[in-house]
């Protein structure tokens, strides 16, 4: 049975202001879903709520992973259940080398690897095994190995930060990955690069929820499902043709349609 992320009639507010007004969505391993929508439609709120940011309050509805509710669970618990969020604005953590951070994260999410052998020797073996994995993944996402020693996101360019997010995803191997505007702020070459890496990674083992304002990333990643979010609701769902329609006509028409139905 593939893992699923299921969102049921989700209503979310920030500081008393309702942002999501009843969202329904189901993403399974192996599927790629794109959620598109104009600015302020609630896309990033959805991403942050799914991962458990404390600022976002779930007023009603539910979020389920494999049928189990995760509402109220802290972000680390959600990560351990196989959820991953690639941040729109990854945070800089000074003094923490990327490799060290990833090893801690890997251990937390995947469970403690038991050192093979005793004491410092066993520790060395697991450390070396992790380094090998990290080197492979750095290559996959086309990052210079020197990044492993740099402090987490500190001084990274916009494109490097986004690529580092994909690297983290590649290491943690989530069941469901939420990509929050991974294409924003990147030039077209960087978008293509990030998208290529992401499509290589998306396979039967991973479901993707791709949140984006623009259609351009969808040139390189082909979603089976496209959803349009307007004013805190998923207003329309369809296939790739819906994304093309939005690209041609923009969001105004669908916003007007949505306004008319309220």
């Amino acid at each position, binding site marked *: 049975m593939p893992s699923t992320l299921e969102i049921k009639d989700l209503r979310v507010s920030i500081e008393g202001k309702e942002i999501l007004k009843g969202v329904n969505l189901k993403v399974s391993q192996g599927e790629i879903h794109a959620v598109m929508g104009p600015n302020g439609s609630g896309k990033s709120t959805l991403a942050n709520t799914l*991962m*458990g*940011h*404390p*600022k976002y309050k779930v007023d009603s509805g539910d979020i389920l992973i494999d049928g189990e509710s995760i509402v109220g669970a*802290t*972000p*680390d618990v*959600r*990560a*351990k259940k196989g959820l*991953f*969020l690639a*941040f729109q604005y*990854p*945070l800089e*953590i*000074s*003094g*923490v080398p990327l490799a*060290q*951070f990833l*090893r*801690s*994260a890997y*251990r*937390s*999410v995947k469970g*403690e690897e038991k050192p093979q052998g005793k004491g410092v020797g066993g*520790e060395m073996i697991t450390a070396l095994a992790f380094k090998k994995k990290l080197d492979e993944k750095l290559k996959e996402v086309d990052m210079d190995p020197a990044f492993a020693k740099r*402090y*987490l996101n500190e001084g990274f360019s916009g494109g490097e930060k986004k690529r580092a997010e994909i690297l*983290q995803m590649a290491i*943690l191997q989530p069941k469901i990955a939420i990509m929050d505007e991974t294409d924003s702020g990147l030039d077209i070459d960087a978008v293509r690069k990030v998208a290529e890496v992401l499509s290589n990674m998306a396979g039967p083992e991973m479901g993707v929820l791709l949140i984006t304002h623009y259609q351009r990333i969808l040139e390189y990643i082909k979603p089976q499902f496209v959803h349009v979010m307007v004013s805190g609701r998923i207003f329309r769902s369809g296939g790739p043709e819906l994304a093309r329609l939005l690209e041609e006509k923009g969001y105004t028409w669908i916003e007007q349609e949505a306004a008319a139905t309220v």
Partner: protein
Amino acid sequence: MSAKQVLDIDYTKYNFRDSDASYEYKFPKGLNREIVERISQIKKEPDWMRQFRLRSYDHFMKRHLPMWGGDLTTLNFDEMLYYASPTEKKSRSWEEVPAYIKQTFDKLGIPEAEQKFLGGVGAQYESEVVYHSLREDLAKKGIIFKDTDTALRENPDIFKKYFSTVVPPEDNKFAALNSAVWSGGSFIYVPPGINVEVPLQAYFRINTQNMGQFERTLIIADENSRVHYIEGCTAPIYSTDSLHSAVVEIIARPGAHVRYTTIQNWSNDVYNLVTKRAYAHKNATVEWVDGNLGSKLTMKYPSIYLLGEGAKGEILSVAFAGKAQHQDAGGKVVHLAPNTTSRITSKSVSKDGGRTTYRGLLHVAKGAKGVKSTVRCDALLLDEYSRTDTYPYNEINEDDATTTHEATVGKIGEDQLFYLMSRGLSEQEALSMIVMGFMEPFTKELPMEYAIELNRLIQLEMAGSVG
């Protein structure tokens, strides 16, 4: 170091004390002239030292407590023990050390550390150094590394030439107290042109309740020599107050390079009032790397006097203040010669109502042209009950001095925590990781095993910060 690695350390090893320690000499509480005389007599010291101690005692009695810094009102000098000696003789090898002391050091892991990393180990148990060794090849080069009492007996000329020349008893009340009752500490002499490639290390430890510890360390690096001395301190936990008041003097002769690294982790009842000062002569470099954890109150401002042209000074200080702790720390640099440079970097973390203070002095004397100096202090507050203050004093008497001062106060943001937690780290692991990252500019200057130890200590201090 990952946060996870750090978690499985049994930290109870620092919270023990020996019940059956038998003391050769143990005086009643409090201090008077007779006790000072008696200390000198037991140590069979030359008359000049006896007189030095008495002169220091007299000054201690009439000198006021500092009118600034932390709260010293509950410090009761009459309740302290000023001297205790567990064994009369010093042991040359580990085998000769009495079993109960050995157990203590075993718990601290010293012999293993020595095998792997150390050039020489001086381990101080109460007032007397009971174990001392120096790798033979170092000794052959003429390097002296022994406890200060032994150096006074065996190397009287060089001892007398430098002792108390950097910190006179009249410097402050605690320097006077130390000068009156000092016992133990490390004495290092490095001959001209010798590079001591491995760090020299000493461990200090307070075991007896209300035991004052007054070690005296003197380091002389002769011309164009190089040495790194490391001192680690731990104290078991007692409910009443103890006093640690050390004096450290460093003389870096022309072209010499001295680094002095300390990580102190005192139990919460210790007053840690230390005077550390270095003279850097022409083209010499002195570096203080100073980490302060634990204690009730620490007042410590490692200082460097840049006496000769081209001398360099660097002070790297970190402080971690938890509940009911005040870390009043910083650094002093006095530029007395042209083209001297200095850098002070201070990092502090306060939590659970703890308080950190940065107190620094930058002095550029008239005639010291072409001085460059950088001061940077960063404070991290982990909750709204904690406090941090910065008191930078600048006395710049030359117009062409290039000085910069930067100070930041940070808090850990909700978004940073969310980011780390979204990768599977618990809230406490995420907090620890941010704090360890904040301390990293300091940690990376430490030898590996000290860096690991410091991260363990931070991890331990962070335990229980959540919820």
